[in-house]
C-alpha cells in the first residue's frame, strides 16, 4: 500500500482546520433588499443554526404564504454537524494510517457530503419558495419565491443575493484542496510506476 507524501499528510490537517471554521463562522448568507428596508436584511446560515433577521423575514413571508423559518424544523442542523465531525475524525485516521487509498476514499466522501448538502439546500429552497399557503393574502399567479442557491434574483419588491460566508469559503477551499492533493498523489504514484 502506497504511503502519502508529506504534503498529503499536512493537507489532512489543513482540511480539518478549514472545516473547524464551520463552528466559528456562518457558511452561507442571504441578503435581501427592498425599498422599505434601506439597510437591507441578512440571514446567515450556520452549520447548526440560522441567524440574522429571521423574525423580520418570517413576518414578511406570511403575506405570500411562505412557511416560517424555525431552527428546530431543520434536522440538517443536527445531521450536518455530526457528519462533518465524523469526517474530521476520519481525517485524523487518514493522517495516522498514512495511506493514499484512505486519502482518496476520504476525498470521495467529502464530494458525496458536499453534493448532498447542496442538493438538500436546493430542495429546501425549492419547497420554501413553491410550497405556499393557498390562503395567503397575496397570491401572484405563477410566482414562486425560491431564493437563489448562489447569486442574485429579483422577487417582487425584494432583491435577493445568496453567497457563501466565511466558513462556506473555507469549506469550498477544503474541497479544492482535497481534490488537488488527490490528483497530486495520484500523479506521484503514476510517475514512480512509470
Amino acid at each position: 500500500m502506497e504511503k502519502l507524501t508529506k504534503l498529503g499528510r499536512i493537507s489532512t490537517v489543513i482540511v480539518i482546520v478549514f472545516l473547524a471554521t464551520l463552528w466559528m463562522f456562518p457558511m452561507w448568507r442571504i441578503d435581501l433588499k427592498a425599498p422599505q428596508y434601506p439597510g437591507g436584511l441578512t440571514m446567515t446560515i450556520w452549520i447548526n443554526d440560522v441567524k440574522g433577521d429571521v423574525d423580520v423575514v418570517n413576518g414578511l413571508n406570511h403575506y405570500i404564504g411562505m412557511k416560517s423559518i424555525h431552527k428546530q424544523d431543520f434536522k440538517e442542523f443536527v445531521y450536518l454537524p455530526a457528519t462533518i465531525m465524523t469526517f474530521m475524525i476520519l481525517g485524523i485516521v487518514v493522517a495516522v494510517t498514512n495511506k493514499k487509498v484512505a486519502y482518496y476514499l476520504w476525498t470521495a466522501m467529502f464530494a458525496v457530503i458536499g453534493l448532498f448538502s447542496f442538493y438538500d439546500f436546493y430542495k429546501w429552497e425549492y419547497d420554501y419558495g413553491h410550497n405556499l399557503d393557498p390562503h395567503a393574502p397575496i397570491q401572484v399567479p405563477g410566482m414562486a419565491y425560491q431564493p437563489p442557491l448562489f447569486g442574485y434574483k429579483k422577487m417582487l419588491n425584494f432583491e435577493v443575493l445568496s453567497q457563501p460566508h466565511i466558513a462556506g469559503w473555507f469549506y469550498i477551499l477544503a474541497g479544492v484542496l482535497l481534490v488537488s492533493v488527490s490528483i497530486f498523489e495520484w500523479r506521484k504514484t503514476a510517475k514512480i510506476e512509470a
Partner: protein
Amino acid sequence: MKKLLLIFSTLGVVGLTESCKMKNTDAVVEGGAASKVYVAPGKYDEFYNFVSGGFSGQVSVYGLPSGRLLKVIPVFSVNPENGYGYSEETKPMLTTTAGFVPWDDQHHLEISQTNGEQDGRWLFANANNTPRVARLDLTTFKTAEILEIPNSAGNHSSPFITENTEYVVAGTRFSIPIKNEDVPITSFKQNFKSVASFISVDKTTGNMHIAFQIALPGMSLDLSHSGKGPSSGWFFFSTYNTEQANTLLEVNASQKDKDFIVAVNWKKAEEYVKSGKGTKMKTKYYHNTWNEDTHSATSKVEDEVIMLDPSELKDMIYMIPCPKSPHGCDVDPSGEYIVGSGKLAALIPVFSFTKFTKAIADKNFEGDYYGIPVVKYEAALHGEVQKPGLGPLHTEFDGKGNAYTSFFLSSEIVKWSIKDVKVLDRVPTYYSIGHLCIPGGDTKKPWGKYVIAYNKITKDRYLPTGPELPQAAQLYDISGDKMQLLLDFPTIGEPHYAQAIPASVIKDKIAKIYDINKNHNPYVSMGEKATKVVRNGNRVDVYMTAIRSHLTPDNIEGVFLGDEIYFHVTNLEQDWDVPHGFAVKGANTAELLIMPGETCTLKFVPDRVGMFPFYCTDFCSALHQEMQGYLRVSAKGSNVPLKYGTGSSVAASDSGAAK
C-alpha cells in the same frame, strides 16, 4: 400683555428715531445661503435642535441646518397623536397635587453635561405654570420623569444645571407664601417668599430628587445659569420686582434703577444641608417616573423638603446689583464672566467672577437685602457694553471670546467681544427675538457655527394663516466675522430657550425597538397564544396583540353596557419603524400608538349597545386596511357568552353568534 407690548413698541420707535436708522424689513440673504442649509434627500442634518414648545407644553426637535421638524416630544401636555396622557400607562406622568393637569407652558431646556460639556444623555425641561421639571431620555426621545416643585409658582428660572449635572434648579417666578397660607395679597413683603430649589440628579439613572430649597426674600426669580470652571460652585439667578410690588408690576416693578443677580454658593448650601442646618418642612408633591421595562409610569407622593434660610445661614447667598429688571443671566465658557441683561437697560453689564469673590473677601458691600449682603456694582463689574441695542434679553457664546445677545425691542442679534466689551456686528431678526441658541452655547465647549433666533412675532414672514400665526426661528451662520442670515422656519407653540447638539453625540445610541422579551408590563401578551379576555366584575381586560396585519382577538362578544373595558395592546413586531395604532369608535380618549415590543392600554367605557369597530391607525403594511375588528356591546343582563378570537378560533363557533 397687550399694554406691555404697546409700551415696548413705543420705546422701540423712540429707539429707532434716536439712532436715526430706518430698518428695512427685507432680509438681505446672500447667494450662498441656500447651499448652506441644503441637506440632500436621504442625508442627515448636522445638529439636533431641541426647542421648547412654550404654550404647547411639548418639546420639538428640529434638524439643523435644514430647519426640518423631526419630532414633537410630548412632555407636559396630552398628545392624542400617540396617546400620551390618554393611555392608562401614561396618565400618571401628568398627575400633580392639583390632579391630572393636561397642559403646561414649557420654556427652557438644558442638555445634561459632564465637565461642563454636553453629554447628550438627558434633556431637562421646565413647566412654568404648574411648577414641574421633566427629564427626557435621549435614547428614546421620551419623557422619563416629571417632578413637581412645591413652594413654587411659575417655575421660570429652570431647568438650568450645574456642570456635572449634579443639580437642576427651579426658581419661582411668583413669590408665594410658604405653605401657601391664606393671607392678604397686600401682605407680600411680610409673607411672600421666592424659593429656589436644587434638584439632585442621580449620575447613573438620572432620577431627580429635591435636595434642598432656599427661601429667598419675596421677588421674582427670572432666569439662571450655573457657573463653570472657577465659578462652578455657584449658581446665578436674575431677579425683577425687588420692589416687591403685588400689583401693576409693569410700572411698580420697574421703579428701581437696579434689581439683583442672586449668586448662590451651592457648595456652601450643600454643607449646610449635610450639617443639618436646614429645616425639614412637611409639604406634598408628585414624583412621576416612567419605567422602560413595564412601559408604564408610576406616581409617588413625596412629603418633605429641606428648607434653608439665607438670613440665618451666612456666606451662602450674595446679591449683585444689575440694571433695570434683568432677564437673561448667562455665564461665558470660561466661567469668569456673568452677563446680566436688563430688559429695559440700554447697556449690558458684564460681571467678573474674580472681582465678585474679591468684593466678598474685602466686604465691599453697599448694604443688604433682608440680611443678604449686596456687593457694590462697580466692585463686581468687568465692564458695560455701551449702546448695544434696546431690550437685551439673552446671551450665548461661541467659544472664541464672543458673546451674542438678543434684543427684543430693536429686534436684532448683537455680537460683541467679552474681553473689551465692544460691539462687533449686528443682524436684524424677524421679528422681536426672545431667546437665541448656539450649539453648546451655554456650556464650557460651544460648537459654534450657527446662532438660531427664536422670534416672538412673525407678521409677514410666511403665507398668512388667519389671525393665529406660527412663531418662528431664524438660522444665522456665525463662522465668519459677520453674521449671515441663512433660513427662516416656523415652529410649534412658542419657542423659548433651545439647545442644539451635534447629531453624532446621540444618534448612534438611539433605540429602534423595545425588546419584547424585556417587556414587563403586567398586561403584556407574549404572543398571540397568550391573548385573552378576562372579566372581573364589570371590568373587562382585553389582552390583545398586534402584528402585520391583524389584531388578536379581533372579534369580542359578551361585553355589556356598564362594563369598563381595558384594551391592553402589545405590538409583537421586532422590526424598526413598524408601530401599530389602535382606535375604538366613540372612545372619548384618544388612540394608542404602540411601538414594536411595547404594551399600551386604552380604557373604553361604551355608552350604548351596539357594534364598536376598532382598527390599526398607523399604516403598517400592505394589508393595514384589513387590520380591523369588532367589539359587540350588549344590553346589561343579556345572555351573550364571553367569546373572542381571530380567524378560525372565531369561525369555529360561528353559529352561536346569531342572536
